[in-house]
């Protein structure tokens, strides 16, 4: 690269496109380049600005509206380097980290783990997967996955295959018998009733037989599909549970649910609708073509000539129908959304007296929908018969030419009948096969999306040397650093030693990393740098299940599963006895309110169940945490947003819970931390102050400021 005037031992580390210019025009050949010595811009192939890494403090990218800018900070000044489209936003956000590492003289590269939105090869959008389903270059991979899916169901497949051959045979044989009937039996003057009856009987047998065969085949294929999708669903669920929270947090719950429900459903549909006919149709198609050629090749070619026309016609029809019904669906969605909006916001609509306007608005959308619906129905009613006619034009032509052949004597009437039968079959199958690419692509996409989850490796795993460890309660942070995204540190260089049984209060403004610290202690995430030791054992060497069984958690919003209060309390210890549950409920000050409920401990809670107040849920969560007698306890805003009375009860309950246990508590209301042995103030991604309440007050630092601010704003106004 002469262009960059690279000096010796200068190496290009990062190169990111600047795809729009200052005025927003799309440009090519413009880049931000970072080497181990410099950061510079290339503008349309020429060097623009250039800075030595040593003379700049930082390189920053700032998201704008649907684009982004990148600038460097040098001598306290911000200097604009260039501009890029939204496509490159995430990429640029890693540059900052890259500079930090290079400035320290380290050599490793920062690699983004985020998924690309479109395939770098074919430019097609990726359906939320890492590999492109179209050109992942492992088509055999998909086939392998597919075969693997089928393997456990070999015996079912065998039965299905037998049925498929039976169906093929019967379908092909029926026209042959018809020919025999016409040519050999139904001859004027020959009154062979026996043969005629035989033929009729055979035809009846085959026609009714094929109904049963097809029914059995569809039934078995749907069942196979259901089994396979169940397998996949179970596998997915197990996998998603084993994956670390970071994987789950990067995706919306809706998306993961879609993969478990909709993608597996698609696989089931594929088996029910496509797979069960796939081989039959392909074999039939080939056989029909062959038979037609043997019977009368001239006529056959005539029939084939119309095939492309038929394919084009049916594809065009499908496209048109899809477009029309897509539009109808969109309008229907719009109407439904409108309805949902108004109904859920009814109190607002009523209290502002806007009923009339909302009605009018709804009328409009309903009318739009009705209009489209009507037009579609008419379209379908008028054009569908026309399409069917057009599709069979080839058949009429065959009848015409073949009929002439019969009249001349080149062909028997029976042969013509057989031929016409095959021709209509041919068109039917062509029609069916033309829908195949789409069905296959849907399947491949679903398989890819499922495979994408199944092939993920959980980032937090029990190492080979993982051991069970009975926790005593000492927790040590040793130069621990962590960020949810590697380029954005949330905690940096945290050093802290917590003694067994100590209660630590975590204090700091929101977004400073208190909850993150707790997530690290819970081992839901792993530190990027440094280590956390539990009683001198690295947290990574303790078996996860064993570790988690020894910690208790009470959060601000405690999730209660759909089920009874009893089952919710013993969630962490399903074999707990009645006495154990009642004892912890009493300790959590929950027993009395539970007894007051009409259904007592059997009260059904959860989304559709009895709605408990925040304080009540809180106390159930505390009981749940107490049940396992945890050695490590985590309280994240456990008393926020409670009324004074329940706060008092909960404080008492918490007091009992934390006794003798190593506890980490987060609270915004500082008064709730008055029992803490030590307070840790987190500020600017680091531990800023550590000490008891009195020590920190005497220090007059951040904590002092926080206390002052809370006292002044929460004190009642003096009249």
């Amino acid at each position: 690269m002469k262009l960059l005037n690279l000096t010796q031992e200068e190496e290009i580390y990062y190169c990111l496109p600047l795809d729009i210019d200052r005025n927003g025009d799309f440009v090519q050949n413009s880049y931000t380049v970072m080497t181990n010595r410099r950061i510079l811009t290339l503008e349309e192939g020429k060097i623009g600005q250039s800075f030595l890494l040593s003379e700049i403090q930082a390189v920053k990218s700032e998201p704008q509206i649907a684009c982004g800018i990148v600038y460097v900070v040098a001598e306290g000044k911000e200097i604009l380097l260039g501009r890029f489209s939204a496509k490159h936003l995430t990429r640029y956000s890693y540059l900052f980290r890259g500079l930090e590492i290079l400035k320290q003289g380290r050599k490793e590269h920062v690699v983004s783990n985020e998924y690309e939105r479109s395939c770098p090869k074919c430019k097609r959008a990726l359906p939320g997967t890492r590999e492109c389903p179209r050109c992942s270059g492992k088509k055999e991979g998909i086939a392998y996955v597919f075969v693997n899916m089928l393997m456990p169901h070999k015996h079912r497949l065998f039965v299905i295959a037998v049925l498929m051959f039976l169906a093929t045979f019967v379908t092909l044989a029926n026209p042959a018998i018809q020919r025999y009937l016409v040519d050999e039996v139904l001859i004027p003057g020959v009154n062979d009733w026996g043969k005629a009856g035989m033929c009729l009987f055979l035809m009846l047998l085959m026609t009714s037989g094929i109904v049963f065969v097809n029914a059995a085949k569809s039934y078995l294929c749907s069942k196979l599909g259901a089994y396979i999708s169940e397998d996949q669903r179970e596998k997915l669920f197990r996998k998603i549970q084993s994956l670390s929270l970071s994987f789950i947090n990067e995706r919306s719950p809706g998306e993961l649910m879609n993969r478990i429900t909709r993608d597996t459903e698609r696989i089931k549909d594929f088996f029910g609708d496509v797979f069960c006919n796939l081989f039959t149709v392909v074999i039939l198609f080939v056989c029909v073509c062959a038979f037609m050629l043997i019977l009368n090749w001239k006529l056959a070619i005539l029939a084939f000539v119309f095939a492309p026309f038929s394919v084009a016609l049916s594809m065009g029809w499908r496209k048109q129908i899809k477009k029309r019904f897509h539009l109808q669906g969109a309008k229907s969605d719009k109407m439904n959304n409108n309805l949902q909006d108004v109904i859920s916001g009814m109190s607002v609509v009523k209290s502002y007296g806007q009923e009339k306007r909302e009605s009018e608005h709804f009328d409009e959308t309903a009318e739009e929908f009705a209009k489209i619906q009507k037009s579609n129905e008419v379209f379908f009613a008028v054009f569908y018969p026309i399409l069917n006619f057009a599709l069979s034009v080839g058949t009429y032509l065959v009848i015409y030419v073949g009929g002439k052949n019969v009249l001349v004597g080149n062909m028997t009437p029976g042969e013509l009948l057989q031929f016409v039968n095959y021709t209509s079959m041919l068109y039917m199958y062509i029609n069916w096969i033309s829908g195949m690419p789409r069905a296959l692509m849907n399947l491949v996409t679903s398989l890819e999306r499922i495979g994408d989850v199944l092939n993920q490796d959980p980032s937090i795993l029990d190492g080979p040397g993982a051991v069970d460890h009975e926790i005593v309660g000492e927790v040590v942070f040793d130069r621990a650093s962590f960020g949810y995204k590697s380029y954005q540190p949330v905690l940096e260089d945290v050093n802290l030693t917590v003694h067994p049984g100590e209660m630590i209060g975590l204090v700091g403004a929101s977004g400073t990393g208190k909850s993150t610290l707790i997530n690290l202690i819970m081992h839901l995430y792993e530190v990027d740098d440094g280590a956390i030791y539990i009683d001198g054992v690295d947290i990574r060497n303790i078996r996860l299940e064993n570790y988690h069984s020894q910690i208790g958690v009470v959060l601000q919003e405690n999730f209660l599963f759909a089920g009874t209060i009893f089952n919710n309390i013993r969630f962490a210890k399903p074999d707990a006895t009645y006495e154990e549950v009642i004892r912890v409920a009493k300790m959590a000050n929950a027993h009395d309110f539970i007894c007051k409920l009409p259904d007592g401990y059997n009260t059904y809670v959860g989304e559709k169940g009895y709605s408990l107040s925040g304080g009540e849920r809180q106390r159930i969560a505390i009981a749940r945490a107490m049940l396992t007698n945890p050695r490590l306890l985590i309280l994240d805003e456990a008393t926020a947003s409670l009324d004074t009375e329940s706060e008092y009860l909960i404080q008492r309950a918490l007091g009992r819970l934390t006794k003798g246990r190593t506890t980490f508590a987060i609270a915004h209301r500082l008064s709730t931390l008055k029992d803490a042995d030590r307070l840790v103030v987190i500020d600017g991604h680091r531990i800023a102050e550590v000490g008891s309440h009195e020590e920190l007050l005497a220090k007059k630092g951040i904590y002092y400021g926080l206390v002052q601010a809370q006292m002044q704003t929460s004190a009642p106004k003096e009249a």
Partner: protein
Amino acid sequence: MREKENNESFSLEKMEQETDEMLRIRYLNRSNAKFEATNTGFLSLRVGEEYYPRVAVVRMFPFLHKDELISIRTTDERSKEIGIIEKFSDVDEETVKLLQDQLTLRYFTPIITRIHQIKDEYGYAYWTVDTDHGPCRFTIQMGGNGIVHLSDTRILIIDIDENRFEIPDIDRLTMKERKKLDLFL
């Protein structure tokens, strides 16, 4: 210099003062504000005693009023409002140019002038278009929130990378283009 936040001492007066400041609407005009381009690509502002080495220029109604009601804010995380420019005629022409320049830098929504092709394939639509900033191809997700109706005839298109494109008036498209677009309306 930008006022330095000191976390160390909170005081009620200060909090109240900040709240009051937040509630106040301060209009900037040629008599009280002095905008100046920095030689590093940004814009600085002096209002009375205050000096800001770099300010953000933000539209309050980016779809309706592109050249009115502009909020001038600090560029730090708190993004505090320094003042509002009600309309461009309140400031000098030179300043308007500087502000426009910053707005161009911040907002990127090419206007589609011609639709060459929209290919719809497996849940995504691939567009090939000309825009006022040059030819461009992009991809949107079908059935998602890719198309936003700003009015009956004006649409905003958001692609899978969150880039934005605008068609200011769909009635002015040719029949052919309109047909391609129909699937999304």
